[in-house]
């Protein structure tokens, strides 16, 4: 394979990774999982006015299997945890998670018996968006951050390490 021949840092590999990242970066299809107040602001971000589609989030994918970015907007209660975990597990790799709003980030003001104190206890979170709820701009900024993160990713090298070649 190419990365072995070029010592893992070769021109072809880098260009190929850049190409993949470019493709992924320009089409982060979101799974809008709005459960509470933040869902309303997320709708505002998706609707006319802010239009998240300008960033390639063209198609809000309500099926987890076709989504790349899980936008968790709103509280996850303990009753909801299995369902939420299941949705995350159903998403195909590569996947990213935006935790939007105070409730999703840490439970927020609801330090109670029924609220999950942050979705990062259950799934890995890539970007935290504080705010209760954040402005639509805040969510768009988070999506831009996700795009920056994708740009710095090394998908081929990761894959190689996974299957045990190239190191």
């Amino acid at each position, binding site marked *: 394979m190419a990365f072995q021949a070029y010592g893992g840092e070769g021109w072809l590999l880098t260009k190929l990774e850049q190409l993949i990242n470019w493709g992924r970066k320009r089409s982060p299809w979101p799974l809008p999982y709005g459960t509470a107040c933040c869902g309303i602001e997320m709708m505002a971000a998706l609707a*006319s*006015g*802010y*239009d998240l589609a*300008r960033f390639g989030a063209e198609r809000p994918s309500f099926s987890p299997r076709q989504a790349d970015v899980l936008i968790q907007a709103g509280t996850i209660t303990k009753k909801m945890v299995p369902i939420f975990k299941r949705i995350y597990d159903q998403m195909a790799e590569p996947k990213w998670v*935006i935790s939007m709003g*105070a409730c999703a*980030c*840490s*439970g*927020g*003001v609801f*330090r109670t018996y029924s609220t999950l104190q*942050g979705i*990062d206890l259950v799934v890995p979170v*890539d*970007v*935290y*968006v*504080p*705010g*209760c709820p*954040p*402005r639509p*701009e*805040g969510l*768009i*900024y*988070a999506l*831009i*951050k996700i795009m920056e*993160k994708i740009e710095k990713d090394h998908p081929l090298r990761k894959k190689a390490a996974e299957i045990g070649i190239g190191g």
Partner: protein
Amino acid sequence: MAKPVVKKKYTLTERVYLIEIIKGLGLTFKHFVFNVKASFRPGPHTVPTCWQYPEDRREIAPIFRGAHMLMLDDQGRIKCVGCGMCAKACPAQCITVKRGKVAEGEESKYVGKTYPEEFVVDLTRCIFCGFCEEACPKGAIVLGPEYELAQYTREECQLTKEGLLANYYKAKEEGKLKPPKKPVPVAASAEPVAKKAAAAKKAAPKKVEAQGAEAKGDAKEAKAKEAEAKKAEKEQKSEG
């Protein structure tokens, strides 16, 4: 069980169906033409097209409640004295303040004799209600205009003293510091509810029906009510 409904008869245009559809399509087409025209209009984009966020930011209210900042007075001294009133008032308990005594030789940095040795705002918990701002006796903590708060880790969302001050410098540089809040006028005396209800009943005249007469009627109402309220007050005073 749901109730059966006898459907009303559709009118001809409704029955033909195409006419209404064409009307609707015409309406959307009108919007389309309007939007295309508007996008050629010079100047910043306004409502017909979307706000092009990262490049062209929407104007936010000067009193917008964004990330916190620690205020400095005009001599560059930190206003906060670390009393912890904000932490007490916070419904989400997201503020941690540790009070410290100002060391000798550092008096020029702080307004009071004590200062916040540690000041952490957990932005992931914060609900931006603005109660800390209201509770602060010195006007030291203020919710600023910053709304781009997304971070990669939860630790980065902890706003420390340095972050709070950085927010202040940034807001000051951009000229986005909040205008001083006007004090809210408070009623002079607490009146019992029963009296108020009686007075309101007396004062409330019959509903104004005609559209044109509304303005006049309302004016009269208000005047009558004021007079009534004054009377009630006087009565109360004389009683007391």
